[in-house]
C-alpha cells in the first residue's frame, strides 16, 4: 500500500514535468530559426542539424565496431583468457561516467588527432561511450540463435564466417538493431562529453562537413536554461519537447523492433 502511493507519487511528478513543458508549446516555427541573442528570435535549427550529424556519424562508427567486437567475443576465442579480460573491461567501461569520455576525447581526438572541436571528434567520443551498450546487446542477440542452426551450417561445410554471415547475423539482426537504436537514443541526449570536447554553446551555422564546429540539442537546451531571461526558458521547454519526442520515438522504434524480432525467434 505504501508502495502504491510511492509509485503514484512518481507518476504525479513525471506528469507535472510534462505539464510544465506545455508552456513551451507556444513557439513552433522556431524549428527553422537559428539561435539568437533575442529569445523570441532564437531557433534550434543549428542544434538540430548538429544532433543529426552527431547521430549519423556516431552510428557509422559505433555500429560496425560494436557488432564486430561482439561477434569476436561470442564466436571466436570463447573462454580464453583474452576474452575474460575483454569482458571485464567492457563491464568497467559501461560504468565510467560520460564526462570522463569527454576528457578522453578532448586529449586524444581534439588535441592529438588534431580534429579540434569538430563533429567528428564528438562522434568518435560518443561512439566509445555507447560501444559497451551495443556490444552487450549484440552478444545477447547472437546468443539467442539456437545452436542447432550453427550445427547444421557447419555440417554442410560452411566456414565459421559463412555461418556467421549467412545464418547468425540475419537471425539476430532484430536484436542488434534494437540495441543500436537504444544506444543511439542515449547518444542523442548526451551533453557533458560533448561540452568537454568543445561543442560550442553558440553556433550560428549548421555543420556542412565532419570537421566543422557544432552544437547539439541538449547543449542548446543547457545554454538556454543558463540564461536569465524568461523567454529563453520557454525556448528551452520547447526544445525539450522536441528532444523528448525524438528520444521517445527512437525508444519506441527500438521496442517495436524488439517485439517483432522476439516473435520471430520462436523456433
Amino acid at each position, binding site marked *: 500500500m505504501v508502495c*502504491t502511493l510511492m509509485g503514484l507519487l*512518481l507518476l504525479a511528478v513525471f506528469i507535472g514535468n510534462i505539464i510544465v513543458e506545455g508552456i513551451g508549446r507556444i513557439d513552433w516555427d522556431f524549428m527553422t530559426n537559428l539561435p539568437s541573442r533575442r529569445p523570441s528570435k532564437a531557433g534550434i535549427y543549428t542544434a538540430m542539424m548538429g544532433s543529426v550529424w552527431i547521430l549519423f556519424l556516431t552510428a557509422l562508427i559505433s555500429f560496425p565496431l560494436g557488432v564486430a567486437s561482439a561477434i569476436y567475443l561470442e564466436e571466436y576465442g570463447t573462454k580464453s583468457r583474452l576474452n575474460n579480460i575483454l569482458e571485464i573491461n567492457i563491464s568497467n567501461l559501461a560504468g565510467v561516467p560520460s564526462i570522463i569520455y569527454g*576528457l*578522453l576525447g578532448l586529449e586524444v581526438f581534439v588535441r592529438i588527432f588534431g580534429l579540434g572541436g569538430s563533429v567528428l571528434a564528438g562522434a568518435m567520443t560518443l561512439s566509445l561511450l555507447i560501444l559497451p551498450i551495443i556490444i552487450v546487446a549484440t552478444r545477447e542477440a547472437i546468443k539467442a540463435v539456437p545452436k542447432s542452426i550453427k550445427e547444421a551450417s557447419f555440417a554442410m561445410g560452411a566456414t565459421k564466417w559463412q555461418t556467421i554471415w549467412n545464418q547468425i547475423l540475419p537471425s539476430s539482426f532484430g536484436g542488434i538493431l534494437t540495441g543500436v537504436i537504444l544506444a543511439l537514443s542515449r547518444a542523442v*541526449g548526451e551533453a557533458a562529453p560533448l561540452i568537454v570536447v568543445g561543442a560550442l554553446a553558440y553556433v550560428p551555422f549548421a555543420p556542412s562537413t565532419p570537421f566543422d564546429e557544432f552544437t547539439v540539442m541538449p547543449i542548446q537546451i543547457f545554454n538556454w536554461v543558463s540564461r536569465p531571461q524568461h523567454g529563453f526558458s520557454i525556448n528551452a521547454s520547447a526544445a525539450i519537447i522536441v528532444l523528448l519526442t525524438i528520444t521517445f520515438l527512437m525508444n519506441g522504434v527500438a521496442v517495436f523492433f524488439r517485439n517483432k524480432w522476439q516473435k520471430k525467434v520462436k523456433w
Partner: protein
Amino acid sequence: MKIREKIIEALLKVSALVTVLTTLGIILVLSVQSFSFFQEVSILDFVTDTEWTPLFAQKHFGIMPLLSGTLIVTFIAIGFALPVGLSIAVYLNEFAPKKFKNIIKPILELLAAVPTVVYGFFALTVVTPFLQTIYPDLGGFNALSAGLVMGIMIIPFISSLSEDALSAVPKSLREASYGMGSTRFQTAFKVTVPAASSGIVVSVILAISRAIGETMIVAIAAGQQPRLTLDPTVPIETITAYIVQVSLGDVPHGSLEYKTIFAAGITLFIFTFILNNISFYIKKKYQEKYE
C-alpha cells in the same frame, strides 16, 4: 579460403581490442595530465585544502569542496531513490497485478531514457521554486533540488536491478514462508528482500556510481560555488559541474587551470572505478549461491 577466414578473424579481434584501447586511453590521459598537475600542486594540498579556487587570483587546489558537493547530492539522491526504488521493485515483483505492471514498467523505462538535461531543467525551474515555497531561504542553486531530481533519475535503475534480484530468489523460499503462515507483506520484507540482498546492494552501489558521475543535473541546478559544507540548501559545485564550467570557458590548453579538470577527473574515475568493481565482486561472489 583459410587466409580469408584468418583475415576476418583478425579484423574482428582488432575491433574488440578498441575497448581495451579505450580503457588504456582513459587511464593514460588522466594519469599523464594529473601527473603534470601534481608537479605543481602537492597531493597533500590537493587532499587537505578546504578551498577550490583554481580560476581565481588567489588559487587553492583542495578537492574536498568538490568532493563534498558531489557526495551531498549523491547522498540525497540515494536517500530518496533507495526506498522508493526498492518499494517499487518489491511491489512489482510480489504484489502487482499484471495490468499494473504493464503500465508501470514502460513508464520506468521511459524515465530511464530521458536525457539528463531535461532533469536538470526540471530541477531548476520546478523543484527549486516549489521547495522555496516551503523553505524560503533555499538558494536558487542548491544541492537539495539537484539531489531529489537525481534520485528520480536513478529510481528506474535501482528498481529494475532490484527486481531482477528479487525474481531470482527461488519460489521455494517464499512458499516455505507462506507455509508457516506469514502474510505476503511479511514474506516480502522478511524473506525475499533479505534473500535478494546481495543483488539489491549491487544495484545501490551501481546507482551511487551513476549519481557520482552525473553531470547535467548538477551543472544546471546545483551551482558553481565550490564549498565545503553539509548544507543542502546552498549552492555548491560537484566535480562534474566544475569540469563543465572550465570546458565552457577560455582556459588555455596546457595551463595549470586546464590540468585541474584532469585532476578532478581522475578523482572521479577512481571513485567510480572502485565502486563498480566492488559491485562486480559482490555480484560474482553471491551469484553462485542460487545456482
